[in-house]
């Protein structure tokens, strides 16, 4: 339902686009979703994909996110080349996955491995909204769980960047079960005493919000990120009234006490480093036991 909403929004925006397309070299320019300024793609990317005019945080691919957060050349992806078994035998599903793999150059909606943040080693999992809206099926659930278990085994802090429409419909009940699976391994991580920082980015919804993403020792979010359990359209249809201004934004969640801090993209790496450092003596103690 959330996925639906997001697609609709994009379509809506495209239709309302007032620009004279002929003047713009295709592929080099992009319009800010918020202030509608036309931005040169290179400039935007150099600015961490944040609009230089209004600070709007564009959505990031997992590749770009990792480049922003992890020290150059230190990321080693986990060797987990797995595919789902299409548990509901949906005809279109396997084909869709194949097409997405070719289009995006990634295997699935999450990339995970070990890397360094200003020299500090972490296990990091980064979801990718370009792959079926970051929805969590069995492969995403397995990769997240594997990351959590690796953090426990290697006594490393865990960082997960979430972006997701929720549990993946195409794998039915097996997707739902990934919520229990990931939440169970976070329980294990807590017993082991590892730090888990959950970073919520635009949008994080459904079964991801209702499992590991809400279970961080520290929960950070990017400014204006949309975060919730039920999608806005479903809520609107259920209660048959308009939603309040700013509903389900990161700022709304901060106000209601469900996230610890909103962090601008340019400060994210420093903030993660600072928090990691504050937990380093504890991590060392764990190592000596």
């Amino acid at each position, binding site marked *: 339902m959330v996925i639906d909403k997001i697609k609709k929004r994009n379509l809506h925006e495209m239709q309302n686009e007032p620009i004279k397309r002929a003047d713009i070299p295709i592929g080099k320019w992009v319009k800010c979703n918020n202030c509608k300024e036309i931005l040169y793609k290179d400039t935007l990317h150099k600015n961490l994909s944040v609009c230089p005019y209004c600070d709007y945080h564009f959505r990031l691919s997992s590749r770009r996110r990792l480049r922003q957060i992890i020290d150059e050349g230190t990321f080693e992806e986990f060797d987990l080349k*797995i595919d789902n078994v299409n548990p509901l035998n949906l005809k279109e599903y396997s084909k869709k996955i194949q097409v997405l793999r070719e289009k995006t150059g990634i295997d699935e909606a999450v990339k995970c491995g070990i890397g360094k943040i200003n020299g500090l080693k972490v296990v990091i999992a980064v979801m990718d909204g370009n792959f079926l809206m970051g929805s969590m099926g069995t492969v995403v659930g397995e990769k997240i769980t594997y990351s959590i278990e690796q953090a426990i085994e290697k006594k490393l802090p865990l960082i997960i960047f979430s972006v997701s429409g929720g549990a993946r419909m195409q794998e039915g009940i*097996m997707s*739902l079960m990934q*919520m*229990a699976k990931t939440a169970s391994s976070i329980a294990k991580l*807590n017993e082991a005493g590892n730090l888990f920082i959950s970073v919520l980015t635009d949008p994080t919804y459904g079964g991801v919000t*209702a499992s590991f*993403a809400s279970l961080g020792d520290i929960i950070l979010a990017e400014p204006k990120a949309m975060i919730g359990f039920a*999608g806005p359209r479903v809520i609107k249809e259920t209660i048959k009234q308009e939603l309040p201004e700013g509903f389900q934004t990161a700022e709304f969640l901060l106000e209601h006490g469900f996230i610890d801090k909103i962090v601008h993209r340019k400060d994210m790496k420093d903030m993660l480093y600072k928090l990691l450092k504050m937990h380093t003596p504890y991590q060392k103690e764990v190592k000596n036991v």
Partner: protein
Amino acid sequence: MSKKIEAWDIMTIARNPTRPTALDYISNIFEDFVELHGDRCFKDDKAMVCGIAMLKGKAYTIIAEQKGRNTKENIERNFGMPNPESYRKAIRFMKQAEKFKRPVITFIDTKGAYPGIGAEERGQGEAIAKSMMTMANLKVPIISIVIGEGSSGGALAIGVADKILMLENAVYSILSPEGFASILWKDGTKAKQAAALMKMTAKDLYELKVIDEIIKEQEEDNLNKTSKKLQKEILSITKELEKLKEKDLLQNRYNKYRNMGEFVNI
């Protein structure tokens, strides 16, 4: 074709407003039930019923999603759709069960967690996540029983258990077939087709190893006969689970969910 009709038929039975609810089973299975109220944070959400009940001289903690049995009760119980307070109440009783070493029995019957403004303001997602995490690490046996409609995270939130039983005419799924059809095919009216595809019946879920046992239902005197069967199961499963060392109980529970999902190599 026959399978398609079957899944939808079961769905219809599961949703039938005259179908027994959690409180009906509880009063038939247990000898005594004291309902206890409130999440100690915000309110007593009546979509979830919690308390302590006796069976053969032993106390159990009960956590149950409760639909209304008439319009008035349905309004009071929000049609069995929990707000975050329900899950926080459930967590409170899980912890209490752990303290007093009581097994936990949960009854699942909900269309899903309530999608409302207040529910989001008070952290519906966080409440569900916490509930599952609490169950994953709870040091007493847990049995979950899907009695009617088990839909989405709102159902699973109280469904992380050592043994999951499911009534023959109950359903358990990621979402309602209407929602599923509306997302996948942009057409909510294709719910029947969706129900056939979704593997939401007890038989399908047993094959997928999502549930451990199917409880057959009866044409006549269903509530009493089914309750008897459930009572027997609760007694024997609890007995088996209590033989386990705490460490093994938790490790088995962990493995159960750890193994959810099958893969092939790319």
